């Protein structure tokens, strides 16, 4: 008996998160892609800081820098003349990835696009995860009327063709009263309407998956003894839900966050192509949309640059998400 207590007392305490991290580290690719994601994150933060400083000082944005500063003697804005330049080492640094049809630096545009991708991906998933998590918790834990309402809400939303829903929402947040209201906010200066638009569309359409998963898991968790114990101690519903049940379903939230992050970035491309996305600033979606006309003129480098960045970021998030799912799955313990 004494032996047991001694070992328990001296044993290293391993929290589930620590355990998950230990399993995560085993995958070499997972570590590599986590680092890659970190690099993208730093790029995005840098671009965001540069943008904030410029807005604060009232300067023109860097991505619109004139061509003279890049060592080119061309006039911008002439799509059908030979003003575009292929990537060349001679134009180091800003022209190294070439100029787009508009005579703007592709390097600066993909750099700024990283910021757009992160803003859209992070805040879009954040909104979607918050809605899905809260509604899922409420539906699963409170049951009865709350459950029926939430299930009705998401089954209705899920039966609408997604393109229709996305485009309708995008139009509302672009042109309706919401857009007018947003334009007057102080934040509109820092987060353009186009970005706000995409964040709202992602947040309001993609919460359904997580809500379903969380609800199903909470239905199981709420029958467990510790929840009954918490109830018998007289804890309120709210406290039990967020303090005791939520940590037990939080792995779902994390995994879903990474999935929605990717969906958000990809949706930015589609929405921008359809003309209801980002328009006031360069984004990967915008570069890819322009490519439709650029390719016909042999200008392939903006598409290559934006496509490659999009690919690498999506790949790293996808892989990290997969590795997280394996690491957080208690059934796969080894």
């Amino acid at each position, binding site marked *: 008996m004494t032996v047991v207590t001694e070992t328990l007392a001296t044993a290293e305490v391993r929290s589930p998160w620590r355990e998950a991290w230990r399993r995560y580290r085993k995958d070499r*690719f997972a570590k590599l892609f986590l680092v890659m994601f970190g690099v993208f994150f730093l790029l995005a933060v840098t671009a965001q800081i540069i943008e904030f400083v410029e807005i604060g000082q009232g300067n023109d944005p860097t991505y619109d820098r004139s061509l003279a500063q890049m060592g080119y003697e061309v006039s911008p804005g002439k799509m059908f003349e030979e003003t575009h330049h292929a990537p060349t080492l001679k134009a180091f640094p800003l022209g190294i990835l070439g100029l787009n049809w508009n005579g703007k630096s592709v390097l600066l545009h993909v750099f700024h696009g990283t910021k757009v991708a992160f803003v859209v991906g992070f805040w879009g998933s954040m909104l979607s995860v918050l809605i899905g998590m809260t509604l899922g918790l409420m539906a699963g834990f409170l049951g009865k009327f709350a459950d029926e309402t939430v299930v*009705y809400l998401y*089954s*209705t*939303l*899920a*039966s*609408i*063709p997604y*393109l*229709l*829903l996305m*485009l*309708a*929402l995008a*139009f*509302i947040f672009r*042109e*309706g009263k919401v857009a007018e209201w947003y334009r007057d906010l102080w934040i509109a200066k820092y987060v353009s309407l186009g970005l706000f638009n995409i964040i709202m569309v992602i947040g309001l359409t993609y919460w359904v998956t997580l809500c379903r998963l969380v609800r199903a898991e909470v239905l199981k968790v709420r029958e467990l003894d510790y929840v009954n114990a918490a109830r018998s101690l007289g804890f309120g519903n709210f406290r039990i839900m967020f303090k005791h049940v939520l940590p037990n379903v939080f792995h779902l939230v994390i995994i879903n966050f990474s999935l929605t992050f*990717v969906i958000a970035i*990809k949706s930015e*491309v*589609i929405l921008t*192509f359809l003309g209801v996305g980002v328009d006031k600033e360069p984004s990967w979606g915008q570069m*890819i*949309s322009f*490519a*439709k006309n650029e*390719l*016909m003129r042999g200008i*392939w480098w903006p*598409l290559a640059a934006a*496509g490659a960045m*999009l*690919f690498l970021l*999506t*790949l790293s998030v*996808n*892989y990290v998400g*997969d590795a997280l799912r394996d690491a957080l799955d208690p059934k796969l313990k080894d």
Partner: protein
Amino acid sequence: MIPFLLRRVLYSIPVILGVALIVLFLFDVAGGDPIQIKLGKNPDPIDVAELRVEMGQDKPFFGKYVDFLGQIATVDFGTSWFTETPIRTIFARGIVPTLSLTMPAFLLGAGIAVALALLVAFYRGSMLDKAMTLLAIAAISISSLVYILVLQWLLADRWKLFPIWGYERGLGSLTFIVLPILIWVLLSVGTDMRYFRTVALEEIGRDYVRTARSKGVAEGKILFTHVLRNCAIPIVTRCAIIVPFLITGSFLLEIFFGIPGLGTVLYESIKSSDLPVIKAFTMLGTVLYIVFNVVADILYAALDPRIRLS
């Protein structure tokens, strides 16, 4: 079975009512003014008033909603505001091009995905498995727009292997749909393969596989007779759920390759706020979604004797 169906039908009524409300609200608030689009910037006020009544746009929101419900009940959505074509004709014209693209693409894609999934499940843990899994993640990490732009430019524009754009009814459509089908397969195989691989691996871990192994059944036989049969349930149900999306079509592929299918219809109608077409399309999508979810449940019960519809 009958009580099950009855309950599902009854349950779908509030869903349809909700969808109708949401879509009408979204487009009533967000859509452009159809009268202005139709008559131009400075129309005659009398024309405007007449047209408004004709389109049913003079009513308050609730009146429009009741009209919409009436249209749903009679399955008659009238004519398009802009092309003046009956909605039924529009859908009848669009369905063949859409299906001629999506059906072969889906069958080919799902077939390849299942075959690859079984292959990597057979060699699970090997270099092949790891390489294929990484390749699949890489394939799904490329934006669909990039796939379309690059392949259209490279294969059709540069190398002239396929026509760039267009569609022809009848057998002539073949040359036009090959490239979109190829792109669809590339787009879907990664996701599907990963899903089917998970399904196969889950089955391989079960007791009956261990039993079969211990009595000396060859690994290939276990995979193709025992495991595949049990995998059939999630595979078939997944396919059933995808069917509605095959009918509503892939709008990106259709726009880029000029295929006059339902995806193009949807895209054009949203662009021009053509509410009758949007309404009809929403209902088509919703009803198909509900129906094929029920079909999936029925298939599930039919394929797995342990499951009963309740």
